[in-house]
């Protein structure tokens, strides 16, 4: 599971092991050590340098013979205790004698910084791969909607800016977002997952069969879509919101009689859970060309080739589908950055 090269007691693993942090992937140290990946975060996080050192379990540069103190510090969860230990052992030796308040500021800065790096990491090749493993294990829980029949969800944020909203669960089966069932997740910032991850996940791993449920999923042999499935709008047609449409919409009834749309209390929201009976109705390009046979010829051609026809190539990134074993730097994979498709 873990692609982190750190020891089990690393700050990152202990952060991910905290209650409520079950959705987090362990960001690889290579990713954090690449300064490019941290572009712009300096201005968003207070005590950036100290926070980064804490995340990477690096001792402050100007502390030389303080291994003992640092070890003590790592074992203590609370900043206050750690500081007291530090004071006892060698307050006068310290160049930076950290105040208790300082440590707790650094600790919370480190959490913020880790979260922001995490937002970027899970959209990288290595990170999204790690999240897919967590998804397969069902670490993110399942959709609370009855008609989604326990479809597995993905953690997402509704904003990329920290402090705006908590983490939510995106259900690929009904394309809606839900509040996680356990209140311990209501302290986790949604920005640490970001707005992009959920949708990007579906584009990156189009072959997960979203119509499979419960026990079917566990026998991983058949939880992938066969390559010859029809493709629509860049996705396997059967994977487009399989939890919606006929049979998955609640119809209100009183003593067996449907409540009419004309009643004031009648159904008004069924569109939200609807999906065309014939899914090709969503092929807007084809429909457009059927209705406008004599529109611009040139554009016609390219559009028809690109979208309206059933393409032979399955969606997604072929290289990703092969699941490379690299867990190294994201740089290593793209010798030619221009061809990156993720």
């Amino acid at each position, binding site marked *: 599971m873990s692609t982190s090269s750190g020891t089990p007691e690393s700050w990152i693993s202990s952060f991910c092991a905290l209650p409520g942090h079950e959705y987090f992937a362990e960001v690889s140290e290579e990713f954090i050590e690449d300064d490019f990946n941290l572009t712009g975060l300096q201005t968003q996080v207070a005590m950036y340098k100290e926070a980064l050192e804490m995340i990477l379990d690096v001792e402050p540069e100007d502390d030389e013979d303080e291994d003992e103190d640092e070890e003590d510090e790592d074992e203590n969860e609370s900043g206050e205790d750690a500081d007291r230990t530090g004071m006892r052992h060698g307050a006068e030796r310290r160049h930076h004698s950290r105040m208790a308040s300082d440590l707790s500021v650094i600790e919370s800065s480190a959490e913020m910084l880790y979260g922001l790096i995490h937002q970027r990491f899970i959209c990288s090749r290595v990170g999204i791969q790690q999240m897919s493993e967590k998804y397969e294990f069902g670490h993110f829980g399942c959709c*609370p909607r009855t008609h989604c029949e326990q479809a597995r969800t993905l953690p997402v944020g509704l904003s990329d800016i920290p402090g705006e909203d908590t983490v939510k669960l995106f259900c690929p089966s009904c394309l*809606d977002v839900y509040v996680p069932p356990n209140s311990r997740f209501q302290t986790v910032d949604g920005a640490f997952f970001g707005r992009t991850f959920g949708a990007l996940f579906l*584009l990156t791993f189009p072959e997960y069969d979203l119509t499979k449920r419960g026990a079917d999923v566990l026998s991983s042999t058949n939880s992938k879509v066969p390559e010859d499935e029809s493709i629509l709008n*860049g996705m396997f047609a059967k994977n487009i919101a399989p939890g919606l449409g006929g049979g998955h919409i609640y119809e209100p009834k009183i003593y067996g009689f449907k409540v009419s749309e004309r009643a*004031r209390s009648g159904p*008004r929201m069924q569109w939200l859970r609807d999906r*065309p009976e014939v899914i090709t109705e969503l092929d807007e390009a084809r429909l457009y060309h059927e209705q406008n046979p004599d529109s611009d010829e040139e554009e016609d051609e390219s559009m028809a080739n690109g979208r309206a026809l059933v393409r032979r190539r399955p969606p997604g990134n072929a290289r990703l589908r092969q699941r490379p074993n690299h867990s190294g730097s994201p740089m290593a994979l793209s010798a030619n950055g221009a061809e990156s498709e993720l």
Partner: protein
Amino acid sequence: MDEYASESDSDYTSYWRDWFISSRGNEYFCEIDEDYLTDRFNLTGLNTEVQYYQYALDLVTDVFDLDCDDDMRETIESSARHLYGLVHARYIVTTRGLTKMLDKYKKAEFGKCPRVNCHSHPLLPMGLSDIPNLKPVKLYCARCEDLYNPKSSRHASIDGAYFGTSFHNIIFQVYPALIPSKSIERYIPRVYGFKVHAAAALVRWQDLKRDDMRRRLRKLEIESGFREEQMDDEEEEEEDDVEFEGVDGANTNTNMRLIEGPM
């Protein structure tokens, strides 16, 4: 389940219904009036549904005085719970029952809708079948008109028939003022700010369905229950959205570099 039996063994002389509704896992039930329970008409047909019907009824109405062994008591106890549930489904659609459930609804005792865009709207318990032992209880959100599974497994195992398929719809017929205003607010999956084509095409199709419905209702001069100002927001939003064309669309290079590292 054992929990109930052992507790009630010690003090079954206290009011059985009080104990029942206050025990853990039974938070969705309201207390059925004594009058309602003692009117045989209200219990029509239940004698064939419930084992040891008479003893169970005696237990529920606190007049049980049979001397019997623990196994028998256990059986009667579970029959009593079943009977209470079945009567409950009938009781909650009566005027008094509706009021009691309404109070619980207003206090959100049945939980809140997990859907983000419903903004914690309170839920109502419901069954997918009126026949017992078929489907467990589900929770209905009047705002998105959809069904959700109870969070806790204690609740997920309650029989849906104890609430029935009609109660949650009747309550809004009786109290139309309680119908929440509907919202077109929804989640749209995006990648770096761009909509994803497959999902966006579905959303457009659903929006057409909704507009058709609203037009139908307007023609019939029926209130659609949507807050009108949202129509404008929606149109505005359409304009400045650019779409990300799925996998075959062009990638946005700036963001790609963020992920892939420097070249």
